[in-house]
């Protein structure tokens, strides 16, 4: 069901390199689901929650994002929550794997289970996110391409090598990914190699693409999966990672 809601903008404050922007809304989006907000420009903009509470949600937006220009109390028309989010009920050991710039939509997952490991990949130390939004109970592994912090290499290399990251994948009950979509086929193969026969939805991946309508009508957000083309806005935007292994 597509719900139309009016959200109230409450605050925006800088959290370099991003902005923390909070809205009050009666039904906030769960992790991986999104709201389509009528902010500026000719189409609505998808907003993924970086924090969720009973009265609303917050996003982390880059400087210049139209949400950072709102005045407190501004009312914003939103459609949603839309799409299918992460499915992690009854999972005890959660592994969250993300590129640094794509961490915000996964932040709500970090408090959802008893034991959580977070793997964050960045090109260099300076690109790693601020740690203060990461709960202290979360086990953190950082990967930098240049070796300036944490493990050296790329996600794919560390998932395929004898590393703590691969070890985390072996013991997890569920792994949630947020990366550039073009990387998912290779990551899916890494998961298969580490887990042999992972169950459906063991590995889930968020795909952030342009979603102008949010209703499955415009066909702009179609993505290729092993079982044919799917719409990111209504069939996703969270998919079974193994379904995205279209090269295999």
């Amino acid at each position, binding site marked *: 069901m597509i719900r139309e809601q009016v959200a109230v903008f409450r605050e925006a404050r800088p959290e370099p390199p991003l902005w923390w922007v909070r809205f009050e809304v009666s039904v906030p989006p769960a992790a991986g689901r999104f709201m389509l907000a009528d902010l500026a420009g000719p189409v609505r903009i998808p907003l993924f929650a970086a924090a969720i509470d009973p009265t609303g949600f917050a996003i982390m937006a880059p400087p210049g994002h139209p949400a950072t220009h709102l005045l407190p109390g501004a009312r914003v028309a939103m459609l949603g929550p839309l799409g299918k989010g992460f499915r992690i009920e009854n999972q005890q050991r959660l592994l969250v794997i993300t590129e640094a710039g794509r961490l915000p939509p996964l932040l709500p997952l970090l408090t959802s289970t008893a034991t959580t490991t977070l793997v964050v990949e960045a090109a260099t130390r300076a690109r790693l996110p601020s740690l203060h939004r990461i709960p202290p109970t979360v086990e953190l592994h950082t990967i930098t391409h240049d070796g300036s912090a944490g493990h050296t290499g790329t996600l794919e290399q560390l998932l395929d090598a004898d590393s703590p990251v691969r070890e985390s994948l072996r013991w997890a009950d569920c792994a949630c990914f947020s990366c550039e979509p073009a990387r998912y086929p290779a990551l899916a193969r890494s998961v298969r190699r580490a887990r042999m026969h992972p169950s459906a939805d063991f590995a889930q991946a968020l795909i952030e693409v342009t979603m*102008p*309508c949010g209703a499955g009508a415009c*066909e702009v957000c179609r993505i290729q999966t092993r079982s044919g083309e799917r719409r990111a806005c209504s069939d996703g935007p969270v998919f079974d990672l193994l379904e995205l292994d279209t090269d295999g």
Partner: protein
Amino acid sequence: MIELAPKHKYGLPIQHPVMPAAGVFGFGNEYHDLIDETVLGAVVTNPVSLHARKAARGPRFMTHGDHFLVHTGLPNPGLKRVLKEHRATWARRSLPTIVHLIATTPPEVAQAAQLLSGIQGVAGLELGLDDGAEVEAACAFLEAAREGHHPILVRIPFGDIYPLAEALAECGADALTLTAPPRARLPLAPDTEHDTEGLLLAKGRLYGPALMPLLLHQLARWIPRLAVPVVACGGITTTDAARACLELGAAAVQIDAVMWKRPNLLTEIAKELSNE
């Protein structure tokens, strides 16, 4: 009551002059939760072809101020699958469904038109022509679409009103939709990763409010010359714009991609016009 196909044996009567344009409303009930369909005249489906089509590669959406380009490649699962998934919705609707057929080849269009004959709820076909279609080819597509028994609207490409509109009206089109969104291009950001040289352009169909004055210009020019009803389409974002189209002689208006931003606009315009 508005008759969109006065010369057709079954006709295509609609209660209200407002409907969504092809490609913005989905195939079935995608907007069911948000839109009161009963105030609309008809629902035009997303483009469908006899066989499945995949989505286009490359950029599918680019904004440019208040306008944007869309290049989807008209993906669809093929007519048989669409019928399997949506014919029940079309049958339940209290208003006509107009199926937008992609003009692939005349034999495929003929086969699709035949498949759609007798489908409950389908009251007409809208034939979508490629840009640059020749008159002869366009008439062949129209003839093929008439293999079914439905009234045929032909959506004319933006740049081809001349010579297609008058020719298709003479060839037996029951109504014309003026027009499909124009094709346009926008520069892409340089691809530093692949070190490509030269200007890279994204192409697609252009949507946005600047199309409305162009539409009015074309309606004023062409409606007096055409002997068939005209459905106006392109850049209509207000009731005033819809009213202007009707006052210029359009039989109905189609609201295009603005409804992705404001889904209720469709019913707002329909209600305001029906109250007049």
